[in-house]
């Protein structure tokens, strides 16, 4: 779960990370009041979970509270669009924060290193907008060290880290204490990622988190109920959000052939087969293990919410899942939802014979293999 910038900064501030003073506003009047309290020289930032919000016009600097308030008033309620998010996102709140004078921009992040199976701290003296480019063209400018799962991060590692990254000597002790706070926040909040970019070094020699991104591991939200309650699903596709409410693994892919299968690997493989056959998959949908007829019906309903879908491929390899249950669910769903588009079903494994019998004589087209099913649904959908 991604946290908004203001939530991320609140969280990090609780762990002692210096952040600019600021508050969230939901209307222009509040924004103006906050700006006045901060002395008028502020930055107003749209609180939307998308990349490129600065370029999209969602971030602006001001010298006086009145214009900051006006800008906030106009921004709230609009939809911001960026290259990363062409569909756009509604601005519901803005963060009004004191302006930070920046002499140098650093980069600090904590995240999982899958290859090493350990958490990793990454820092660079070349922070700012182009950190991705730095990672590509000058990888040595990013220094790394692992967090010992039993000991945490040690002082000797941090001394080496800030030196490796060429952090200016005068900023090193503040950087070390900031990393310690970040690591503590990361570990105690079950974060997936903590990133400060830019991490600003001010002309008067202070290190401060000018921006912050924190994501919490969805699997650990049971330990952090406060965040779970504030989950903002506006970043998600509406069908994906509905799927999440129903507890179904669904990813919208933008094509026109609906895919339903069981097990992540098999569904991914079905997408590959449909693409190989010349089709464009509309979604990834995993009905999950042991699905009953009701759940299968709910899945068909989800796929049909995507109005561009021209055909549905059902690919089930029954292990715990019984094929007859799946067959019953699909039939009743097609009936109740009055689905007119072509449906191809390939069912194999536990109770497959019974399942095929149930589908006999229906409008569902049977297939023996996954490859055959993919070819058939592509043919029928684009006919």
């Amino acid at each position, binding site marked *: 779960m991604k946290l908004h910038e203001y939530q991320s900064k609140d969280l990090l501030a609780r762990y002692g990370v210096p952040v600019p003073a600021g508050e969230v506003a939901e209307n222009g009047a509040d924004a103006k009041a906050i700006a006045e309290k901060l002395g008028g020289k502020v930055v107003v930032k749209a609180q939307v979970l998308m990349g490129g919000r600065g370029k999209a016009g969602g971030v602006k600097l001001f010298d006086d509270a009145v214009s900051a308030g006006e800008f906030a008033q106009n921004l709230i309620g609009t939809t911001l669009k960026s290259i990363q998010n062409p569909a756009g996102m509604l601005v519901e709140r803005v963060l009004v924060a004191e302006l930070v004078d920046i002499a140098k921009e650093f980069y600090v992040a904590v995240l999982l290193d899958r290859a090493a199976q350990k958490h990793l701290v990454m820092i660079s003296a070349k922070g700012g907008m182009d950190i991705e480019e730095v990672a590509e063209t000058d990888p040595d400018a990013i220094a790394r060290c692992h967090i010992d799962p039993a000991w945490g991060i040690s002082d000797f590692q941090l001394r080496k880290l800030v030196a490796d990254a060429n952090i200016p000597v005068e900023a090193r002790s503040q950087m070390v204490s900031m990393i310690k706070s970040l690591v503590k926040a990361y570990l105690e909040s079950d974060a997936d990622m903590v990133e400060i970019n830019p991490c600003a070094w001010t002309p008067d020699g202070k290190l401060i988190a000018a921006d912050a991104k924190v994501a919490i591991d969805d699997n*650990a939200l049971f330990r952090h109920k406060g965040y779970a309650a504030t989950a903002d699903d506006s970043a998600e596709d509406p069908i994906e959000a509905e799927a999440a409410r129903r507890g179904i693994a669904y990813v919208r892919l933008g094509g026109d052939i609906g895919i339903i299968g069981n097990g992540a690997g098999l569904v*991914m493989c079905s997408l590959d087969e449909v693409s190989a056959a010349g089709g464009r998959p509309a979604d990834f949908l995993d009905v999950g293990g042991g699905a009953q007829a009701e759940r299968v019906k709910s899945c068909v309903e989800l796929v049909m919410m995507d109005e561009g879908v021209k055909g549905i491929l059902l690919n089930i390899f029954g*292990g715990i899942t019984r094929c007859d249950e799946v067959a019953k669910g699909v039939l009743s769903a097609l009936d109740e939802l009055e689905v007119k588009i072509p449906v191809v079903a390939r069912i194999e494994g536990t109770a497959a014979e019974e399942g095929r019998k149930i589908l006999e004589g229906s409008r569902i087209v049977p297939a023996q293999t996954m490859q055959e099913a993919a070819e058939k649904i592509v043919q029928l959908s684009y006919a």
Partner: protein
Amino acid sequence: MAILVDRSTRVVVCGITGREGGFHTQQMIEYGTNVVAGVTPGKGGQDFHGVPVFNTVEEAVTKTGADAGLIFVPAPFAADSVLECEGAGLPFVTLITEGVPIHDSVRVVNKLRAGGTTRLLGGNCAGIITPGECKMGIMPGHIFAKGNVGMVSRSGTLTYEIVWEMTRAGFGQTTCVGIGGDPVPGTRFIEVMQMFEADPATEAVVMVGEIGGSDEETAAEFVKTMKKPVVAFISGRTAPPGKRMGHAGAIVSGNTGTAQSKVDALLAAGARVADKTSDVPALLTAAFQMA
């Protein structure tokens, strides 16, 4: 011969009285797995389909001589259960549970690796089966057949799909190992490949990977040195970056974890890589003819 489990394996099921644990324990007993004990705190002394239930893993091990743990407990308590199995001295533990918090996985996996006494398989895996001898997991037993091909996979249903193709084509299996779909697995591809290379009964290996991480690429380095032929399949070739495809670990981030990088690494290592699941038997045939 096989790897990790065989007919002598004595299984203790953690979470035996739960819905999933109960159902699969019955299935395993029907298959012929030697399930000697179950553990559910507070339900010690009960009997579950003829299997004695204990309050702790330690007690189960002492009283029954169990030597492999199979965990079905809910995700919030899964890490604790793995540690309990390690504490009780079990050399092998399989974690079926999906949705274990990543920080729990990192701590537990590193603790077990440092300890060096307990191997963890999973989490979020289908388990392990040595056909005809021991099914320790949730896979449908009837699709497997005894044979000379070792199999290792991140995905449950995709394993079933390919095993079913293999079994029908006459390629039985020594052992099928599900390493699971989580980002920090207790056992990785390369470790299973090393075991298969050393196992006298295994004459070829089928490896089923998917997008996300770099464990397939790491395993490919070992494949280069293997004497036994390897057939591989990678799913997620058309998955878009940044989208988590069901499994927590199945996500392409930036340029890493793509299917193409895995396919390239495996081809370069001399593995035969199937375009389709249904191509696996033909590639096995070719591999055996060359050998």
